[in-house]
């Protein structure tokens, strides 16, 4: 494909216009007018831990029940975490798998917290989960757990802050800083 030199020039000029700082004195501090929902990072982390423990409790219950009534999760999870779980539990139900035991939340480290604005992704926490006490079995009672499954698993969990309520909305694998150690 051939791009006209004129087009490139225009694109560069536009890009350059966006690059030149317009204000020689960078503003020092953004105005914080809204009242923070949490007074401190520690308070935000404590709220996130509580919300996540509630989520783990319900997700374990649904897993124990072989994926039945997964809508129970709607009160404790949202976003992609909820949709991933609903899809996963539908698969559990179909394969007639269920779990035995419960997941432990062993450690949390606050990554970031937007205490003023809230909204989606307001709080992000590194979380270590211990699944050593959980087995997943098929309808014959045979374990279907992968031999590769780590007992301690680290995740980066994102929480949404809506109406002063923290709800986990995404869980992704995290291999950076060792939260479990």
């Amino acid at each position, binding site marked *: 494909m051939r791009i006209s030199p004129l087009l490139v020039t225009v694109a*560069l000029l536009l*890009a*350059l216009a*966006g*690059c*030149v*700082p317009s*204000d*020689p*004195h*960078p*503003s020092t*501090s953004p105005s914080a007018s809204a009242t923070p929902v949490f007074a401190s990072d520690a308070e935000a982390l404590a709220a996130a831990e509580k919300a996540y423990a509630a989520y783990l409790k319900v*997700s374990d219950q*649904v*897993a124990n029940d072989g*994926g039945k009534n997964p809508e129970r999760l709607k009160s404790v999870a949202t976003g*992609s*975490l909820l949709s*991933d*779980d*609903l*899809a*996963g*539990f*539908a*698969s*559990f139900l*179909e*394969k007639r*798998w269920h779990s035995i035991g419960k*997941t432990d939340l062993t450690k949390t480290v606050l*990554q*970031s917290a*937007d205490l003023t604005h809230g909204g*989606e*992704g*307001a709080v*992000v926490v590194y979380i270590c989960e211990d*699944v050593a006490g959980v087995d*997943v079995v*098929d309808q014959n009672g045979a374990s*279907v*757990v*992968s*031999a*590769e*499954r*780590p007992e301690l*698993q680290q*995740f*980066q969990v*994102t929480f949404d802050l809506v109406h002063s309520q923290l709800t986990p909305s*995404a*869980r*992704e*694998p*995290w*291999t*950076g800083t060792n939260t479990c150690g």
Partner: protein
Amino acid sequence: MDWHKYLRIATTLALAAVLTFAAAGEAHAERVGCSTTDVLTGGCSVDASVGADDVTLVGTATSPGSGGSAGKGSGHAGARPPFECQIFVANRCLVRVPHPGPAAPAVQPITLRDIASFRPSPGIQFMEPNGWVVPGLDANFYSVVDQQLVNGTLLAQPATVRFTPIAWHWNYGDGSAVVRATKGATWAAQGLQDFDRTPTSHVYESEGEYVIRLTIDFRAEYRFGATGFIPIAGTINLPANDLRVTVTGAKTVLVEHDCVANPGGPGC
């Protein structure tokens, strides 16, 4: 001018990077999440490693499966079909390809070049006294610069880059140059008297005209959406304004009355 040349090159590279990734494969952009069933069966693992200076990871993850499809795989969690992660940034698969082809583009780490279109405002330096200095006395140099958030597009996705000033390279024009870890502040702000020594002050020994050049190093971090900031290796070095100073001797003389009020007075 060098600055404009650099800016132009950087912008071209940034545009090229954005265009490349925009064309690379937007069709199946999807985030990797870990469902409870994956966590419990062991299907949510990441195959990646972290280098000391490298925060960008490349790897594959096991697909969480598409829920409704029956008879897929052998029924064992470990036998699920894998997907290729096309753009993997610090443990997050930003773009994954359900059916990997042999001609998948190479995964690019996020580098300073990728964020060249995100420009922090360069700092501004000031000095006290303003424009003149007495040999042997401390002149206080300081800069106005802060952490900055710049929004833009990175790898065809909305992103924010955070620039944090971390080092101040002062060249005083008299043959001496130092690196400071602070931006400095006015004497008044530090609760000091004029001509006091500060962490960023300098003493000129000889009279003359000097040009003071300051370059500030910024650390850069990026984030997509509401995730945490991820550091980018290296620093960005931005020159601040130049200052010109006249170093001239001050003689102490005995005068009668105030020379401002009575310029014609004895000694004035």
